[in-house]
């Protein structure tokens, strides 16, 4: 723990880690796990929680026959119980150049959220996989299990540097194709890609339970710009001559609201969790308050 604290103090403080140890990620659907864990699985197993009945077939364990039913119906039924397995949690962090903006940067904000969610998942014996979305692909960290894995995860998160353009559609498709086990996917990005819907659709098609964590810079919400500017896109190097006027700022606000509204609307339509945050949002409030209220953690 001591070592963990030292290496992660840039992302999370020890106090905060203690606070979130008792939390767990909420998965709305059941996913089959690989090892026994604390999550209900689609499999039937040996827990104490009743799941279903099925007809007895030759070779079944007599100990699972429900004799009360046999007494009443004179048929042999086996009593099935819920299997509890581990959950696969994938946290995808957009590492494009646009995420480097803001103070703290959107990327750092996203990394902190990823670290916190990872720690919550690891604390609940869930299996946590990470991916940094850059370009058209996703650099992944194979899923880890158990609290001790947090150290490696945090180190890996810290090593992510913003670079180039991220094409969400292609990088998310790449991730979905390379990931065989379904589970919960949390995408932390500013979603400044007109084709983000295709990427989310690729995840949904693979039966992932998706959460879109929309990270914005406060300066993107309220741009402190004035005068005649030559705007340069940090990712594409696209240049636009713009004269800042009240009308233009009003239009920008309108467009930002439409963009965020469009993303949220898409998410609601396809059962994707949508959480919007800015780099100025208090981090602890976000995890302990806002995400709990939104049902992401409990």
């Amino acid at each position: 723990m001591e070592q963990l604290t030292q290496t992660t103090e840039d992302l999370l403080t020890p106090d905060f880690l203690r606070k979130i140890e008792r939390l767990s990620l909420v998965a709305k659907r059941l996913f089959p796990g690989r090892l026994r864990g604390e999550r209900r699985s689609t499999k039937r197993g040996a827990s104490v929680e009743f799941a279903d009945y099925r007809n007895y077939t030759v070779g079944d364990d007599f100990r699972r026959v429900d004799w009360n039913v046999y007494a009443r119906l004179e048929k042999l039924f086996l009593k099935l119980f819920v299997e509890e397995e581990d959950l696969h949690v994938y946290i995808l962090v957009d590492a494009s150049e646009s995420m480097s903006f803001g103070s703290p940067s959107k990327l750092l904000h996203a990394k902190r959220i990823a670290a916190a969610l990872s720690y919550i998942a690891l604390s609940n014996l869930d299996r946590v996989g990470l991916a940094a979305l850059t370009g058209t692909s996703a650099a992944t960290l194979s899923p880890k299990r158990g609290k001790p894995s947090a150290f490696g995860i945090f180190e890996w998160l810290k090593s992510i540097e913003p670079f180039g353009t991220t094409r969400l559609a292609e990088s998310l498709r790449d991730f979905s194709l390379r990931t065989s086990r379904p589970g919960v996917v949390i995408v932390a990005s500013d979603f400044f890609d007109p084709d983000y819907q295709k990427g989310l659709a690729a995840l949904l098609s693979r039966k992932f339970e998706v959460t879109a964590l929309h990270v914005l810079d406060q300066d993107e919400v309220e741009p402190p710009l004035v005068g005649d500017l030559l705007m340069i896109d940090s990712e594409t190097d696209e240049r636009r001559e713009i004269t800042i006027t009240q009308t233009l700022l009003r239009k920008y606000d309108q467009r930002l609201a439409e963009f965020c509204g469009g993303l949220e609307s898409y998410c609601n339509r396809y059962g994707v969790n949508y959480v919007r945050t800015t780099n100025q949002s208090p981090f602890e409030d976000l995890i302990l308050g806002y995400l709990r209220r939104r049902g992401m953690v409990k």
Partner: protein
Amino acid sequence: MSFLSPLSLLLFLPLGGAIVLLYLLKLKRKERVVSSVMLWRDAVADIQANAPFQKLKKNLLLFLQLAALLLLIMGVARPIVRTKGLTANRIVVILDSSASMQSTDVSPSRFGKAKTIALDTVRRMGSGDLMLVITAGAKTRVVSPFTSDKRALSAAISGLAPADTHCNMKQALVLAISLAAGQTGPAPRIVVLSDGRFGALTDLPGRNLRLDFVKIGRESDNVAITGIDSRKTLSGEQEVFIGLRSFSRRERSFNLEIYLNDQLRDLREETLKPGEMKQEMLGDVTGAGGRVTAKLDVRDDLAADNTGSVYLTRPRKISTLLVTKGNIFLQNALNLDPNTQLTRAESVPADFDKRRYDLVVFDQIAPPASLPPGGYLLVNTAAAQGPADLGAKADMPVIVGSDRRHPVGAYVDFAAARIAEGRYLKSRDWATTLVEATGGPLGVAGQKNGRRFVQLGFSLLDSDFPLRVGFPIFITNCLNWLVESNASEAGDSTRTGTTMMIDIPPNTRTITVEDPRGARRTLDVTQTPVAFENTDIAGVYKVRGKGVNKEFACNLASSEESNTEPKDVFAVEGKRFTATSKAVSTNREYYGYLILLALAVLCFEWYAYHRRL
């Protein structure tokens, strides 16, 4: 609207072109790296798609700058608007304040209407306009210097009142022109508010005058006392002449009332046809002298000329002392006046100091060193208190001129006289030269400290002057002028607007003069006679002081003023100025407003730039 300098508008082409050129040049923009231009691109596209005039709006600053430039250049081009009314950037208003402006043919009076027009002009003044107000009576007065203070101008004009004097318009115009010449810029407009009843205007720069003549008045319905005077007959009686004249367009009948010391002496019914003149004479006025006042009992346009007063001298014997070795000419000439009581002596009498003489004639005999107040005729001799000392000897001097305007020199032809010899006179500064010869004065007159002197530098016996026609006139003039100061205790009369010389006894330090309206002025006596100039009101003035109790009368007695028929035209050095109504068209400049507007546009441009409109 038109422009005084329209060519200046062409400046807009190069200057406006320069502004547009600056806009066409690539604007140096600040580079700013943003996370993504995606939303900005959409926002800009939205604005361009939603606003059809977006391109124009984009260049709002350009249009504002061009508008400000256009307004400035229009200001430089000096736009003018023809307006009705007496307005100009600088205006000199001359109000005729003479007696004829008191006529009531227009309501409330001509002067009242002139004030109304002047006040209306003040009200129409723009913020930067300047006005100078002058009144033209017998004396010209600057009521207000060039100022744009409307309140001060209105107060000054409202407080004006007309006088019972003639109008010296020439002096007012000269003053207006000289004050206007002290101003920079175009010549101010001179507006004359008058009925045109003033004398000829000559020796004025009429050609360059910017002058509007606003005729005040409609018609003349006036009868007047145009003159009143008294004359002493040879028999010692006095006659009073009263000149009457009608300036009405209809026949007027009225009563002429004649008062002697405020007692009605005569009442005459008069009827005057239009333009008719009449002289009435009141003869055989004897007694103790006093004031004769003539009044017209008539309702006409002008009241100031319906009264006139004249003073009669006290009929008494003139006590005259002739000190001479023998001069028959002088003796006979002095005896011509039946009122003269002549005493002849060959030397200065021993009781000279004790007896008071009205007139003492020293013929070639030196007077005593100290002379009591009185009249003195010094012939070929000089007095220590006299107006001149005897100077160099004059042999056959040639007389080159004489002062016929002086009461003593009136109607006397000194130039015809031949003089064998005499002495040139070295006159003192208070003396007036009566007779001028080639080598210097031979005759002077003067008064000081209650003494009046006439002094000749030659002996009458050494010249043929006593044989000339002018000699008895000269002696009579001497008697009238030298004795007048002694005999005029009753009073004197003059025209309004002129300076009245008031004789007062020595040792009087102050006098108080009460005008016909009861206003009193106290004057310090620095020398005698005292000059009193505030004679603007017709009527009787009372003078009071230590040992002084006299009065004098001021009469309008002016046919020019009493003729209240307004003139339509007056000429200045051949240039004719026709009367206009008050609705005079003038050019009104508006460049100041345009420059203010340009400033406002520039301020808005600054606001638009900083508020990112």
